[in-house]
């Protein structure tokens, strides 16, 4: 039961998840991060640190987000590993404020 990054991640790149992942299982593209289900050890450490709540346990995804299990698996294989925190994208804080409102 790995964890899954959902589309809520898109557009901020806070990458707090990356800094606390004990096994470096995050991958990244221009849009968002993805969790490699082969390497994730289910510690759940990334879930509470995501500023916008984009990461969920696979078994707790609502039906309309289930496709993200497969998208994480596929995109993690296609995109480079990210091992350290990156600078957030412009507008990330405004986006977060909207989401959390």
């Amino acid at each position, binding site marked *: 039961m790995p964890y899954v990054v959902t589309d809520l991640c898109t557009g901020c790149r806070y990458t707090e998840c990356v800094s606390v*992942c004990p096994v470096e299982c995050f991958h990244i593209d221009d849009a968002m991060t993805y969790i490699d289900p082969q390497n994730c050890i289910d*510690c*759940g450490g990334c879930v509470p640190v995501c500023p916008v709540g984009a990461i969920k346990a696979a078994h707790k995804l609502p039906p309309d987000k289930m496709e993200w299990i497969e998208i994480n698996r596929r995109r993690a294989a296609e995109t480079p590993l990210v091992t350290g925190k990156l600078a957030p994208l412009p507008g990330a804080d405004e986006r977060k404020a909207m989401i959390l409102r």
Partner: protein
Amino acid sequence: MIPRASSPRRAAGRYRVAIIGGGPSGFYAAEALLRSEQAVDVDMFERLPVPYGLVRFGVAPDHPKLKQVTRVFDRIAEMPGFRFFGGVDIGKAVSISALRSCYHALVLATGAPVSRLMDVPGERLPGSYQAGDFVAWYNGHPDFQHLQFDFGAEQAVIIGHGNVALDVARILAKTPDELRHTDIAAHALDALADSRVRDIYLAGRRGPDQTRFAAKELQEFAELADCDPVVEPDDFPQLSSNPPDTEPAAALAMLREFSMRPTAKRRRCVFLFGLTPIGIEGDGRVQRMLFNQRQEQAPAIAQGHVALDCGLVFSSIGRRAAPISGIPYDEPGGVHPNIGGRLAAGGCALRGLYVCGWGKRGPQGTIGTNRACSVETVANVLADLPQLDEPLRHPDSLFAGMSIRRYVDYRSWGRIDAEEIARGGAKGKPREKFITVDEMFAAAGGGVAC
């Protein structure tokens, strides 16, 4: 002979950093140092012959997936410039000052090994234990394998509402068949197989909305073979219908679900709220636990006192760093005072001394929290290195004139590891740990002579 730290040519102009402690924060500090642009060699000193710290001795035996993080530690140990010295007790066999004379910088990754006491009367009665001691015992820690736990009582009380308390409750709640194929120490499996414990009470001071439980760890109580989670519906204050998406809220939702479940199994794990421990009573051994009850949690009870009959008490109210001679210590905080990982005295950073992990920030977070923590500390180490004094001696002379005769390097840890896995395989366990330092050295072929 100690292998040379680096060839003389390569060693020229390189920095040398010693890390004390072979747990997660120590490994992540080593990784950050060895990945840096600067030329750094890292020597890790671990008190026990075996690495991984709380991943080996803290993570519960029935959480094998989490232990896969050791693959990352093994990869770090293979990085050029890394050496492991297991079975070397810094502060005892080798002094801090001797270590400092051989390295540009020293990073403490010594964790929070001391259990906090409840400080109530009766705490030392037979039958009253520290949760951390129990955890170390069932995980085969050499310093705790001599302990005797008596599971003859039917009621056990666990004090504290964090994930260690959940581990203790779960290990008490599980049947021998649920534990048999884990890496739990053989002596613990045997003792627990005879357990008469039926009612496990998890008592916390605060309400169900203020626990430190991880929801996913609470969830496991819904899936036990012979134990039901129990929460009294009265324990739920009127909370807003749309709680924020936070960990305490997720834990609360899980507890609420427990309050609506029917119970049918042999054992019960009862979550109790608003109870502050005030004492343990018993005639020569634990017979009951006394609490003050917070009034808003107890509308039906006029008096504020509650007594729970029990024969076992496990206190799980936190841990603190151990004081180390010559290293600053913050007594109330239970950490080594620091500024971003630079050890500090009187608000001023000390030259060449650093801390990471639980000794830096207290016992909190998941395994990976230590990665971010160690990265922060190492950023400061790297910034300071060019200004730090050249060490007086080379590490290869560290053990000269000392009583220490042997240590375990990473290659000989590999022999211990393989032997443990082979021993476990014969019993359908992922490993059967060696539980004494002598056995560990023997499996390591005697280790490396100094």
